[in-house]
């Protein structure tokens, strides 16, 4: 069969359209080159010729389509094996003709918090939505996060809500699966959330995945006190580390300890020098833990590759108050703090560390209208945390959350009021079904 028409790449002309029009409705006419649909990828069989699973039927069961042509040729119809009656019925149920792998693609894009509801559609979906390879696929779709997790443990029942940034909605999350002693939210990384608390006299740390409602208590540290902690997940090898630095309650200094999930044990390392009156502000990026010391105001860095502390002699901005360290993407480190407490020109500013020049460079300032709205009274406290190049400010007195996108330089409010209580703790969270607690 001769093909008429010019060859052209998609996007430059309509000649492909013309040639398709010549052949598609000609029944079994095939053109010179059959473009094959090769999206074969691991477990997903995407060829329309050979879809496996319950929807595959042999060509002998193909039925003739009586409705208006939909461009699906005989092979495709045979694959689905559906009898087509009237126009209306077909229109309503076209989704039933969706191939299995495309159904997976669609379900993978349903937000994680809504997946649970879909399990009760039917048993097949229930099985699918608990299948580990589907959940892994779901977790690899990038559009589900980040979210802001807001945790509050007033009495016995933990109240927890998660704000999904892509969906701009709050969801309630059930944290009753955690033991009652877990009251301090340490942080979240790669889909895992870390809590700590005291059961009796003993201090414990646990990690959990709120989506799968699984949790695990970590072994005790060598110097097992309530210490400043940070958890980091390495998604490339599905492992995580917890780093413990100084004692929170006193200014006693302990050797830095690191928990590695691959070995399930803590290793003891160098004690942090200059350990008087340390603040609790830490940030981790690029295999380095940055620690802000208060007196004197300075920056310490712990290098995980060589296991030792270094002092970074970056001069901090004058009259900085409430400085927070926030890690950005790759090697970026931000300092967020208030300037000028008793002045009318008080504001919150953001600096970035220039690693080469060892210098804090001012990159942004919170616009006065947001500042006045976030902190009604100038001496009110605020909390600050970050993920990638997003920084979130929360003010519990006002019950508000403010987001700043460092790259796009956009400020935006988080709607809703899940930050109400004074002992609310919050952090960024990326919901992932496949984050493993082991």
């Amino acid at each position, binding site marked *: 069969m001769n093909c008429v028409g010019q060859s052209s*790449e*998609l996007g430059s002309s309509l000649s492909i*359209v013309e040639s398709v029009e010549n052949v*598609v409705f000609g029944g079994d006419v095939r053109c010179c080159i059959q473009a094959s649909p090769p*999206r074969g990828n691991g477990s997903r069989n995407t060829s329309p010729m050979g879809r496996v699973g319950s929807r595959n039927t042999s060509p002998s069961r193909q039925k003739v389509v009586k409705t208006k042509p939909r461009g699906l040729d005989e092979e495709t119809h045979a694959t689905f094996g559906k009898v087509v009656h009237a126009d209306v019925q077909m229109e309503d149920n076209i989704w039933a003709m969706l191939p299995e792998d495309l159904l997976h693609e669609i379900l993978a*894009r349903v937000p994680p918090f809504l997946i649970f509801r879909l399990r009760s559609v039917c048993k097949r979906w229930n099985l699918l939505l608990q299948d580990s390879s589907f959940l892994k696929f779901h977790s690899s779709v990038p559009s589900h996060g980040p979210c802001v997790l807001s945790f509050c443990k007033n009495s016995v029942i933990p109240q927890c809500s998660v704000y999904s940034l892509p969906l701009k909605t709050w969801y309630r999350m059930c944290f009753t699966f955690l033991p009652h002693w877990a009251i301090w939210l340490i942080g979240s990384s790669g889909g895992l959330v870390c809590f700590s608390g005291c059961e009796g006299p003993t201090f414990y740390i646990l990690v959990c995945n709120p989506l799968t409602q699984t949790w695990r208590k970590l072994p005790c540290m060598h110097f097992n006190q309530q210490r400043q902690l940070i958890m980091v997940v390495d998604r490339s090898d599905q492992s995580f580390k917890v780093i413990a630095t100084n004692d929170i309650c006193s200014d006693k200094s302990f050797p830095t300890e690191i928990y590695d999930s691959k070995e399930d044990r803590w290793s003891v390392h160098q004690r942090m020098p200059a350990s008087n009156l340390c603040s609790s502000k830490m940030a981790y990026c690029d295999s380095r833990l940055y620690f802000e010391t208060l007196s004197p105001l300075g920056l310490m860095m712990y290098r995980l590759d060589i296991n030792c502390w270094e002092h970074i002699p970056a001069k901090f901005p004058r009259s900085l108050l409430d400085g927070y360290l926030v890690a950005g993407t790759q090697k970026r480190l931000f300092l967020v703090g208030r300037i000028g407490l008793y002045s009318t020109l008080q504001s919150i500013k953001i600096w970035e560390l220039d690693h080469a020049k060892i210098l804090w460079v001012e990159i942004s300032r919170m616009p006065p209208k947001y500042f006045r709205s976030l902190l009604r009274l100038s001496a009110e406290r605020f909390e600050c945390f970050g993920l990638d190049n997003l920084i979130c400010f929360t003010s519990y007195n006002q019950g508000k959350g403010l987001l700043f996108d460092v790259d796009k330089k956009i400020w935006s409010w988080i709607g809703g009021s899940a930050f109400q209580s004074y002992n609310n703790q919050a952090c960024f969270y990326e919901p992932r079904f496949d984050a493993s607690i082991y």
Partner: protein
Amino acid sequence: MSKTVKDAIETIPTDEINSISLSLVRSEILTKVIEYCKKHNSAQMSDVDLMDWDVEFANVHYTTLFDLVLSANYMNINCLLDLVCGKIADMIKGKTPGEIAKLFDIKDVSTYEEDN
């Protein structure tokens, strides 16, 4: 943009290609797909504008959406597949399990075997 077309072009020497058969794609849908590819290949629009354009593009009757998802899959255009699947996921989000079962024509739950 379409891996299917790219592979077809790459496997056969150029002077032998007159046209490429995309036999599973209806011409009206192919027109839409081409419109999408042209828009995304041109450097004219900013990211934000392009996102808005995408939202408009995907705001079509569900029969068209269905055709688009099959075509994007067949033609192996990842970003279009992402857009359309996301749109369909959006549609599912607002429905109860009963409505979803009806939509996907899942008639008889007891047909499926018990797990374990």
